[in-house]
């Protein structure tokens, strides 16, 4: 795996990406030639109507789903040639995920959830604790480390998920509708957290959303339609 993260290499590079699902032997074109390049430090929102391919694109970029044509590169690594376990390794090392729901392991405390992924990476126990604590601290969760997910509010849970996503220092943070289950106040709080992460630590973030409020926090707005990039604020300017 080449690991080229020089500043001129885009963090995400998608070229004519196609994803075709077979639904009862009828092909469904989830992505029909998507082109997208994201450079380090961008905070990108993916908007578009339901079924336009937002989630599919995020999953392809995150190595959760395969693709049928085109080229996808993440942090300099071309995903097309990787097998399932290499993709798992790529996710573990390079990508942080925040999902809409079922983000956390219910039987582990918030701290253990954050440490869990470091443990999978084989980080030593001492270093794990330090990194998990500072990640929780930076998200204002210092006091809640011992609680289990069930004992946390939806917003707190999502912040733990973000702490877990960034504790591995990934090149890219992917969030698929992270605010869909939150009320508007908590949504704003979470978006501020993401914005700070982007602005202060230079974390590259891509988030899929329906919500116009989300777009107001991002530095670049991309709209999808029928499996293609329809509008891109970066191209417009």
């Amino acid at each position, binding site marked *: 795996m080449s690991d080229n993260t020089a500043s001129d290499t885009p963090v995400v590079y998608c070229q004519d990406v196609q994803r075709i699902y077979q639904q009862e032997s009828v092909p469904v074109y989830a992505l029909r030639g998507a082109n997208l390049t994201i450079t380090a430090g961008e905070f990108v929102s993916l908007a578009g109507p339901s079924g336009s391919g937002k989630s599919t694109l995020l*999953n392809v970029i995150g190595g959760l789903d395969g693709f049928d044509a085109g080229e996808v590169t993440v942090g300099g690594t071309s995903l097309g040639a990787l097998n399932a*376990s290499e993709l798992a390794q790529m996710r573990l090392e390079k990508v942080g995920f925040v999902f809409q729901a079922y983000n956390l392991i219910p*039987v582990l405390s918030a701290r253990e959830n954050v440490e869990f992924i470091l443990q*999978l990476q084989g980080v030593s126990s001492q270093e794990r604790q330090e990194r998990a604590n500072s990640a929780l601290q930076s998200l204002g969760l210092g006091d809640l480390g011992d609680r289990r997910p069930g004992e946390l509010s939806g917003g707190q849970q999502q912040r733990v998920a973000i702490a877990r996503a960034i504790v591995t220092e990934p090149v890219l943070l992917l969030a698929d509708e992270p605010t869909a289950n939150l009320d508007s106040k908590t949504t704003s709080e979470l978006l501020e957290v993401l914005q700070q992460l982007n602005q202060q630590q230079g974390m590259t973030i891509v988030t899929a959303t329906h919500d116009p409020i989300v777009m107001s926090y991002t530095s670049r707005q991309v709209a999808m339609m029928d499996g293609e990039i329809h509008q891109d604020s970066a191209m417009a300017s």
Partner: protein
Amino acid sequence: MLGTLTLLFNLSLRNIVRYRRRNFFLFAAIAVAVGGTTLSNSLIRGWQVDMLETAVSGLSGHIKMQAPGFADDPSLQRAFSASTNVVLDDQLPVAGIAKRINLPAVISSERETRGVAMIGIDPADEAISLYRDFEVSGETLAGPDDGRLLIGKALAETLQTKIGRRVVMIVEGADGKSRERGYRIAGVFDSPTNWPEEALVFTGLQALQDTLATVGLDNPITELSVVLVSDEDRPSAAEKLRDQHPQLVVKDWRQMQPQIAEIVDVVDATMVIWFILIMSALTFGLVNTLIATVMQRTQELGMLRALGMNKQLLLIQVVMECVGIMVVGVIAGLMLGVLLVFGLGEGIDLSAFSESAEAFGMSTFLKPVLTVEDLLLFGGLSMLVGLFASFFPARRALKISPLMAMNR
């Protein structure tokens, strides 16, 4: 790697606790099944041990030596000398040896006449035979020179005689002629099984030899019965005795009582089959619940895959969870089984069914026997069943893709 396994173990344990309600019923089902089979198998084992003991203690011993032809034509003319040496090495420890004259005889009181076996014994030697279990009223035989009789309670009732009375015995002497002689009844014995009470009459060996005169043999006997410390030594001991005494017929209890030998052999297989039957019934429930546990957590497990956990680790986690449930249930079950067996204590009184029980060579009391080997065997088999059952949820877990973390 060890760290990762600890992590997965921890995760599995917590998941078991997490579904404690459902798992409790699973534990209970496993525990009852394992405990119940442990109990029933201990009774079967007890039956087997009892049959073996009955077979060995019923005068035959583990090994019996007789003169050739005696089995077909039991008479004193086919006697051999009691000076016959029995030499076995230290590897084949002997519990005891009994030398007897055992001849068909007729016993008569004033009222009745019956055919019996007249057995001349040295009472001191008979701690290895059913003789030791007799409850004697009146007096026991004092020694080999005691010329009185010890007869069974059932026989005494049939003959309508009692302790202190005289009866007449007719036995064939060494010269082939019948000897008719009056005997005094010293005591009446009560035996755990009925047949000795009806069929056996004991007297002192030396006294009987004197009565029947000899065949020019020093100290003649018709049988020499050897009881070993362990039945496992029987084949090699028999082999040795055959080499030492080519002039005698050496038979072990399996040859003398082939039906019982067959039943004893079948018991081992029966126990394993019985256990497997119960466990397979249990496996259906187990597999069902375990699959449900995995299906219910599709998104959660998908999330683990999405985060970068590979298939092998996911598989290990699911198998650990299943085996964990099994281990707890089986240990609880074995403990339950041990408790039940101890609760049964002395055993089950079968005297109500004693006639049919005796037909199977059993005594009227069924005492459970629990061996460490059996416990380990049940434990081991249960673990195998658990591993087998975990295959199905594991296969299901392998189908979980990282995409299933998504909420669709």
